[in-house]
């Protein structure tokens, strides 16, 4: 377990919106939203390249700790509005999904 705020700093993620005061207990990476919906779990950090409003809905449904948009992807404007309203924490990073996963793996149990 690691605090999201601390992990985000270590991974040098760019904060977009939402509260960072959560504990991270795992990670899930994936882009097919219906699949993610049945596999991502509470407290996970979810890494994806998808950026539409459905991402916010899936994040809310699964109660993941945050969404990390890989490869410099930006949230769609309506998705940003929904994420802000629902207090879904979203970060962005220039790194690829794989690179982000390796960083999570490195820091999560520190």
């Amino acid at each position, binding site marked *: 377990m690691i605090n999201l705020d601390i992990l985000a700093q270590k991974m040098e993620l760019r904060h977009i919106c939402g509260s960072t005061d959560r504990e991270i207990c795992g990670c899930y990476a994936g882009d*097919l*939203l*219906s*699949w993610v*919906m049945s596999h991502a779990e509470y407290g996970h950090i979810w890494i994806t390249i998808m950026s*539409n*409003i*459905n991402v*916010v*809905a*899936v994040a*809310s*449904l699964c109660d993941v700790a945050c969404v990390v948009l890989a490869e410099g992807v930006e949230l769609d404007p*309506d998705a940003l509005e*929904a994420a802000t309203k*629902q207090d879904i924490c979203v970060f962005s990073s220039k790194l690829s999904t794989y690179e982000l996963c390796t960083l999570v793996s490195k820091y999560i149990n520190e």
Partner: protein
Amino acid sequence: MKDLSLYILDIAMNSVRAGAKNISILLNEENNVLTLRIEDDGCGMTEEQVEKLSNPFFTTRKTRKVGLGVPFLRMLSEMTGGKVTVTSRPEADFENHGTEVVATFHTDHIDFIPLGDVVETVVTLIQGNPDSDYVFRHKTDKLDVNMDTGEMRAILGDEVPLNAYEVLSFIKEFLRGQYENEN
């Protein structure tokens, strides 16, 4: 869900929840465009409700605050360069009330997810909701698969439900046979 047929099931379940007596699932493939049309005679929706459909934070569900049936369908369709249109006539204002969802997909686009086992989708739908009637048609340049449970019911009478094991097995074989014959 990696097959389009599972998303079709999801949308058709909306028709069931809308109290539809008749549900049609029509697939037409022409020049690399797949058009999916789901029609029902359920309670329908107001214009305001239809407008909000693509927003996943709008749902008629009471159990959770998120509804993803139409948003996912729209996303999958738009990812291939297609689009989704929903038209609806609410019960309060129309005698011929109901809803039509039309989605197009460019099947030659790399992000098009395969249709999958649509026969299984139809059978699953009937199994869970045997009191409605279903029309299914899948037309391509190679095949024209048709099914109408209204015709079956006329032969079976009122005594035999559509989800009787023998009826479901028949429907499955009936559809699979049509896919095999015309391929």
